């Protein structure tokens, strides 16, 4: 069967199978990092989720800290904020949205203030002054203090008290007292009783690095000045000021102005590097299907109590999109949202020298397409991972180890176990049955029964091709090998008279269709037309139907299988994630070979949907579920009354394919099959068979070692008295531990490694 060439490690060239632009646009589809709708609507960018979470947990101190990030005077903002967040709360679409503004008020009232750190913080060098009173001026002073600027406020009033009263006349007495204390606690210097006229302005303007003024004062000093409202800046006068409206408007204006002060203090153009300011539209997706349509906790006149605020805050469902992470075991395993993972995997392909740390995740995706089906924006992780694999292959950087066994298995299917024959009595056939390599490996009796049935009931001749469709090479990203396989099949199809392909596996059907086969049908469609064969029966218990990822997006096939199940008399139970949203069993994309841990988690994910027995229509699914101990049947087993029994190990899967070919050759084409018989006894302990299956060591590999031993007599005698022989086969060295038995060998253990070992001189 030959070997596959290992990858090189000295090639240093670049290939871009996926362009940076496509990558970026793909990454942008993932909305995981989008802000929730409430935060997006807040021009001050309150982290509403964290805020409500803290409040719901009763940590009002923490909630207040978060709120103070946007509000230097929490009671002032919460008393008058128009709360655009509330209007955007998704819960308002099904019931009443969270009353965020009242939770904010409660937190501002009950939250314990953190220690006043201002006095001890080191101050910035540049000095600032805020002239005049009003909400904007007050909040700007608060913002600048937060940014640690030395700041002086000049006002007409004669005390902090009267200043605050002038700025926020709407505060009730209790709140006023709290905010007054807060203002006094801040590191802000005051100069009271100022005249606030032009002469005064000229007087002080040279003493500060940056000057700011209230809207009112600016208008009286510079009636003609036209402030840039984005920057809150009058460029000509060099004065930070602008118009604002309402409490939230003042707070937002103060935020923008504080940023302008920052830029000016650093000698920069205030227009540049400001980042995204103000409210935005969020593209986030929230699944509301499980959210309850609830009413608000009624809010009394005087505002929420602690308990009421906690309860109301607790109604937030923490909007975030994790549709794919919920459904895909692979994404869940790597705990990364696909936008980020895709970017990392893309970057991995661009590494010329150094570690490719993302090889494992790149090869662990089952390329099943479920994420695309569940993602509100059709994020296509399969495409990213497949193109990344192709990229690695074409730059000769793809390690062979993760996929070698599967690829060699494909060669086995298409060389040793390959069979292509027209039905006896026909030269050209109208049909060809293509059961797929997994069906031949796992349920050979079912394949036989199906072929006999098709030849008996269809007119025009039914040929048979036993082999692999090439999906294995395609999944490995090895286009060249896949093309060779497709060409091999094309040649055979032409020889058989371009028959209609009857596929036994939806993944084969897909692979064949995508690679030029003209007319490909599923055997399920043919059976619906012909009617059920004799011996067909239902599963006695209600069963879960597992849709194959090969049939994703193929409504017709999904419906045909259901129709077949219903004609069989099967009672199907509903499972979450069925149809197009079905998860992969772990075989797809070669996950089962490249990353057995993730593949196992995928199988679990499939099985956690139901306790019932599983009916599937892909042999790989049937096999993986059975291996996990679940009662599992392929729909063809039910149609033909066959039972493939307990799942075969990797060597039995090969033996089954070979035996199927040989038996069919003898029984149907009356040809004598070549069969290699060993002229010595080869026995295995159960432990050895288990080890071999786990370590992907085939009986053939063991035979190769033993043949070598018989010829050379080379072995060692280990300290346990057993013999160990070895042989290099392909890219691996196999070691076999055995004892000599009467007329043969008892194999006890086996292991392998890919590194070559040689004796070193000196």
């Amino acid at each position, binding site marked *: 069967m030959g070997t596959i060439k290992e990858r090189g*490690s*000295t090639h240093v060239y670049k290939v871009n199978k996926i362009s940076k632009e496509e990558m970026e646009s793909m990454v942008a589809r993932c909305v995981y990092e989008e802000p929730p709708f409430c935060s997006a609507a807040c021009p001050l960018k309150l982290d509403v989720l964290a805020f409500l979470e803290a409040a719901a947990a009763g940590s009002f101190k923490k909630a207040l800290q978060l709120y103070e990030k946007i509000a230097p005077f929490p009671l002032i903002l919460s008393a008058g904020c128009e709360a655009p967040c509330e209007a955007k709360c998704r819960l308002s679409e099904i019931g009443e949205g969270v009353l965020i503004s009242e939770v904010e008020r409660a937190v501002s009232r009950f939250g314990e203030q953190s220690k006043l750190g201002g006095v001890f913080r080191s101050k910035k060098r540049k000095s600032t002054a805020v002239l005049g009173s009003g909400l904007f001026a007050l909040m700007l002073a608060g913002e600048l203090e937060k940014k640690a600027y030395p700041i002086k406020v000049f006002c007409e009033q004669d005390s902090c008290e009267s200043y605050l009263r002038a700025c926020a006349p709407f505060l009730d007495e209790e709140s006023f007292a709290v905010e007054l204390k807060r203002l006094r606690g801040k590191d802000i210097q005051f100069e009271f009783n100022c005249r606030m006229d032009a002469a005064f302005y000229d007087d002080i303007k040279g003493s500060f690095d940056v000057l700011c003024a209230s809207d009112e004062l600016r208008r009286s000093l510079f009636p003609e000045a036209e402030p840039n409202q984005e920057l809150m800046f009058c460029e000509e006068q060099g004065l930070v000021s602008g118009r604002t409206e309402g409490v939230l408007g003042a707070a937002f204006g103060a935020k923008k102005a504080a940023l302008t002060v920052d830029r000016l203090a650093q000698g920069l153009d205030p227009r540049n590097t400001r980042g995204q300011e103000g409210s935005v539209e969020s593209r986030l997706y929230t699944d509301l299907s499980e959210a309850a349509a609830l009413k608000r906790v009624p809010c009394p006149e005087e505002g929420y109590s602690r308990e009421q605020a906690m309860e109301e805050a607790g109604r937030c469902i923490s909007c975030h999109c994790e549709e794919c992470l919920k459904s895909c075991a692979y994404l869940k395993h790597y705990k990364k949202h696909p936008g980020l993972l895709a970017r990392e995997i893309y970057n991995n392909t661009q590494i010329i020298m150094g570690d490719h740390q993302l*090889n494992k995740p790149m090869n662990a995706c089952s390329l099943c397409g479920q994420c695309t089906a569940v993602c509100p924006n059709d994020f296509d992780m399969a495409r990213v991972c497949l193109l990344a694999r192709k990229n690695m292959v074409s730059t000769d950087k793809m390690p062979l180890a993760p996929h070698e066994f599967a690829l060699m298995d494909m060669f086995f299917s298409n060389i040793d176990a390959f069979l292509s024959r027209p039905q006896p009595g026909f030269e050209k056939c109208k049909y060809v049955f293509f059961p797929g390599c997994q069906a031949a490996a796992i349920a050979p009796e079912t394949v036989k029964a199906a072929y006999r049935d098709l030849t008996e009931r269809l007119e025009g001749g039914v040929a048979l091709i036993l082999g692999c469709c090439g999906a294995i090479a395609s999944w490995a990203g090895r286009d060249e090998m896949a093309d060779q396989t497709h060409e091999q099949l094309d040649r055979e199809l032409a020889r058989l008279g371009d028959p209609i392909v009857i596929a036994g596996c939806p993944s084969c059907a897909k692979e064949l269709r995508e690679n030029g086969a003209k007319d490909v049908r599923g055997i399920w469609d043919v059976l619906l037309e012909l009617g059920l064969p004799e011996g067909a029966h239902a599963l006695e218990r209600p069963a879960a139907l597992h849709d194959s990822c090969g049939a994703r997006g193929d409504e017709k096939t999904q419906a045909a299988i259901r129709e077949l199940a219903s004609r069989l008399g099967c009672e199907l139970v509903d499972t979450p994630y069925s149809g197009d949203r079905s998860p992969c069993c772990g075989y797809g994309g070669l996950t089962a070979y490249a990353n057995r841990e993730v593949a196992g988690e995928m199988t679990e994910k499939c099985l956690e949907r139901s306790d019932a027995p599983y009916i599937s229509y892909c042999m790989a699914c049937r096999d993986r579920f059975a291996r996990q101990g679940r009662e599992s049947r392929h729909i063809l087993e039910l149609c033909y009354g066959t039972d493939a029994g307990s799942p075969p190990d990797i060597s039995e899967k090969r033996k089954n394919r070979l035996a199927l070919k040989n038996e069919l050759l003898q029984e149907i084409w009356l040809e004598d099959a070549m069969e290699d018989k060993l002229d010595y006894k080869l026995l295995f302990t159960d432990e050895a068979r288990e080890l071999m299956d786990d370590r992907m060591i085939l009986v053939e590999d063991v035979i190769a070692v033993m043949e070598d031993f018989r010829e050379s*007599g080379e072995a060692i*005698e280990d300290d346990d008295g057993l013999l160990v022989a070895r042989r290099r086969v392909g890219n691996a060295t196999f*070691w076999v531990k055995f004892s000599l038995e009467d007329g043969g060998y008892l194999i006890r253990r086996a*292991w392998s490694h*890919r590194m070559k*070992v040689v*004796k070193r001189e000196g």
Partner: protein
Amino acid sequence: MAIEKNYYTIDPEGKIRCFKCKVPLIKGKAKFMYLDNGFPVELPVCPVCGYVYVPEELALGKVASVERALEDK
């Protein structure tokens, strides 16, 4: 190659024998090679025919982890 670091050393301590040559294996110099990289090691070697033995624990442990690391280079 005077200061060659050995990545792994196994001394058979006379407990393992060459089946063909009927002599105990001794600690000897060997080399692992994979994907254009080489590692000097000391493994049980037959002093007569030069047969080098890689025990199971070594193959599944150290050797396997070095292989994985090199594959992702």
